[in-house]
């Protein structure tokens, strides 16, 4: 179980290239992933601002935008194909290069080995490879903006046959869609490499005394997420390859016989569009948990640290993490209730979907239990963790509507599910990332972020995301359909225009508030107050080493773990927290 008794310490790299570019150090790779996600998230945010502009004022002319996007804003008005390309790329970039990358590739890489007392990942070269394949994947994805026809317009779900037929079905469905598929396939490969590494590391590299039930909940969530990635990404990879073959190899996995597009008969036979949906959502639903589980781990860690109390119901939390992860593999059909799926299987998918509410409720109750009776220190990191709990409740609970076959019929593909999944897998997960950033930044960069600026960032963001997404639920109820470049064509959507404007203004304010974060981040990196070893008086292993940690993480020390991950406020202990490596207390506790 333990390697740390005989640590194999790689010599620290000496050249710039080996240290900062092709590094095998999990900490550098973590930071590389984080910066990749940072570029991706601000790109995705910019795309959503552009989309909101058109939704609020569809006929308005923006001549200055035509100067930047001459093809997308001909005559100053955003074209519908540009809108759909923005929509596709926003979803894809956010889901893959932000929500999958930052929590797992970024923080997981950096802190998983340290939190279990390992000196690196099990396969450092594989780790380097997985980052650079992700980097290549993002390059290919961004290239789709610049090819003839532009980025694809088929949405992040790339439903076949729209995505399979090529340019005959619409602009951006030529080379843009090819690049999209290649990028996603590369991303799948990178995620697989990462997942193998995470699982092996957790199982084999724990320090002496670090039993599974002493692991921080963050490690449990990264571990579970890696298992989900290992089981779901291969399916997407296979689906992507089949789709590419349909496009360039003359196969018809997803293209049925007898299609006629714009009066042209398509020569193909026997494929099934529903098959694409099955394969996509078999990946797509676990992907939701890949995005959110690490945020749950971070939230548990932060609530315990700043409430100065052990995590309430640690064992139940571990079971709930696993239950959510595993149940997540049996509910993909709830994305397909109105697809023409057998109505019988819909009944089963519906009941399993609502069953996920049970472990989710356990997590919520235990977070409240962790706060109960504590002495809460409202640091910026803690504010984001509390924000996560609130958003997790608001975003998760509306799943009770969408998981029901009959209620979903009316709400499917309206703004209601858009609000639901943005709230939970979008902003709640982002709150997890931001909480983690404010918490671990001192360890990663050796300097503190500015708390005042951080808090201002929290207040604006928390109020902002609620102002954006809560009204969006109501818009969905009123019938506002998603992926509509404008809603002026339909009478039943007419009353929604003031809501569109309100949401757009809320988006502008919230997006602008993110600049505070950028300023804080880069100011903190170079000018922030020097961080001590353990600025938050926390208990887990990353806080017993220098900020930032040395190349081998613990400076050649042999670690022995004696305590659970969250021993705060232990009666009889000399201070209000007992670090995991502190000697056993006299009471035998």
């Amino acid at each position, binding site marked *: 179980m333990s390697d740390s008794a005989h640590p194999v310490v790689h010599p620290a790299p000496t050249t710039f290239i080996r240290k900062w570019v092709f590094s095998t150090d999990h900490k550098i790779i973590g930071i590389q992933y984080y910066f990749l996600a940072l570029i991706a998230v601000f790109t995705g945010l910019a795309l959503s601002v552009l989309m909101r502009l058109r939704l609020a004022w569809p006929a308005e002319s923006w001549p200055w935008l035509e100067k930047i996007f001459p093809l997308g804003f001909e005559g100053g008005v955003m074209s*519908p194909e540009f809108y*759909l390309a923005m929509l596709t790329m926003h979803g894809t970039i956010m889901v893959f290069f932000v929500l999958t990358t930052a929590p797992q590739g970024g923080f997981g890489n950096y802190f998983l080995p340290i939190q279990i007392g390992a000196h690196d990942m099990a396969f450092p070269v594989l780790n380097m490879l997985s980052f650079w394949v992700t980097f290549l994947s993002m390059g290919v994805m961004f290239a789709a903006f610049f090819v003839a026809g532009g980025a694809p317009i*088929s*949405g992040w779900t790339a*439903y076949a*046959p*729209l995505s399979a037929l090529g340019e005959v079905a619409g602009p951006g469905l030529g080379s843009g869609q090819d690049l999209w598929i290649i990028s996603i396939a590369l991303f799948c490969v990178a995620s697989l490499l990462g997942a193998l590494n995470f699982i092996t590391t957790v199982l084999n590299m724990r320090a002496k005394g670090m039993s599974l039930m002493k692991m921080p909940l963050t490690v449990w969530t990264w571990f579970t997420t890696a298992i989900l990635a290992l089981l779901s990404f291969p399916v997407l990879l296979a689906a992507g390859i089949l789709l590419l073959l349909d496009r360039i190899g003359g196969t018809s996995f997803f293209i049925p016989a007898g*299609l006629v*597009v*714009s*009066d042209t*008969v398509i020569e193909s036979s026997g*494929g099934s*569009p529903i098959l694409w949906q099955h394969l996509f959502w078999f990946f797509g639903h676990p992907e939701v948990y890949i995005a959110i589980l690490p945020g749950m781990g971070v939230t548990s860690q932060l609530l315990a640290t700043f409430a100065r109390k052990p995590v309430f*119901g640690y064992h139940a939390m571990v079971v709930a993490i696993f239950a959510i992860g595993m149940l997540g593999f049996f509910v993909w059909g709830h994305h397909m209730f109105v*697809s*023409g799926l057998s*109505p019988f299987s*819909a*009944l089963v998918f*519906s009941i399993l979907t*609502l*069953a996920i509410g*049970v472990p989710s409720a*356990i997590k919520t109750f235990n977070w409240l*239990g962790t*706060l*109960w*009776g*504590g*002495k*809460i220190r*409202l640091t910026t990191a803690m504010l984001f963790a509390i924000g996560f709990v*609130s958003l997790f*409740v*608001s975003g998760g*609970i509306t799943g*009770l*509507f969408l998981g*029901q*076959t*009959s*209620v979903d*019929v*009316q709400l499917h593909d309206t703004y209601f599910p858009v609000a639901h999944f943005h709230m939970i897998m979008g902003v709640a997960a982002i709150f997890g990332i931001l909480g983690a950033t404010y918490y671990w930044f001192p360890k990663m960069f050796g300097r503190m972020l500015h708390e005042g600026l951080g808090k201002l960032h929290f*207040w604006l963001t928390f*109020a902002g995301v*609620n102002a954006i997404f*809560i009204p969006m639920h109501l*818009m969905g*109820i*009123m019938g506002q*359909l998603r*992926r509509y470049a404008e809603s002026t064509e*339909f*009478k*039943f959507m007419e009353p*929604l225009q003031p809501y569109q404007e309100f949401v757009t203004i809320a988006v502008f304010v919230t997006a602008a508030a993110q600049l505070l974060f950028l300023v804080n981040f880069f100011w903190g990196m170079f000018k922030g107050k020097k961080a001590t070893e353990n600025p938050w008086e926390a208990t887990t292993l990353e806080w017993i080493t220098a900020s930032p940690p040395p190349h081998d993480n613990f400076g050649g020390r042999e670690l022995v773990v004696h305590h659970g991950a969250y021993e705060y*406020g232990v*009666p009889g202990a000399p201070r209000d927290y007992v670090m995991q490596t502190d000697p056993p207390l006299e009471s035998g506790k």
Partner: protein
Amino acid sequence: MALALAILIWAIVLASVVLFTGEFGWFPPQISAHGDAMDAQFNNTLVVVAIGFILAQVALGYYVWRYRDRAGGRVVYTHGNAKFEVATVLITAVTFVTLAIIGQRVWIDLHLEDMPEDAVQVEVTAQQFAWNFRYPGPDGQFGRTVPRLINDQLNPVGLDSGDPASKDDVVTLNRMAIPVNRDIRLTLRSKDVTHSFFVPAMRFKQDTTPGLAVPGHFKALKTGEYEIACAELCGLQHYKMKGFLMVMSDQEFEAWLKERAEF
């Protein structure tokens, strides 16, 4: 600051309650036989959701304020409470599964009930970016269609004139007439990519998946003209793919059909 955060969380709860109970808009008025049950299930779920949402958020705000860091006192040192966890599992499991099971009733009505023999048949064929509707005519039989005969102007669904059953088929573009208070049996198809046939007032939405002939049925209880929208991203003019459902009396419907048959 703890109080400010508590107040913000409570304000979000209050705003949500006002938004969902006030006159800020709701579902479009519904006119279908199954719609009331569907809306009722939404409302039942809303009650459960509202209780969970309000309890959790109010408690969160209260705890943040009540247990803020103050001088003196110790934290409650506990690792949890097994009874509490078991109770949570039981209460939520029973509530959620009950909700899921009750919600299936409308679904079963919509998909698994047999249709009466005299139901009016309509075939919906979606395409980029229009709706074609076909009625079988007096013989009650849809004629054969062949993809290579499809011509958007002259023969939008590719009727094969070699099949006698196709002679009296009536095909219309973007306007679907149905008689009020009669069961309508739908067959949903697509010529090209996946679309979704959505009639908000009918509480009806079904993807038209190419390669499949998806069955569906509904009954309208009120005459009038209602919008049909495409709910599944189908390309450039997805947002313009509009049709009309015209619910009329039996006589008006027969006349409408006859007029088009002669055309």
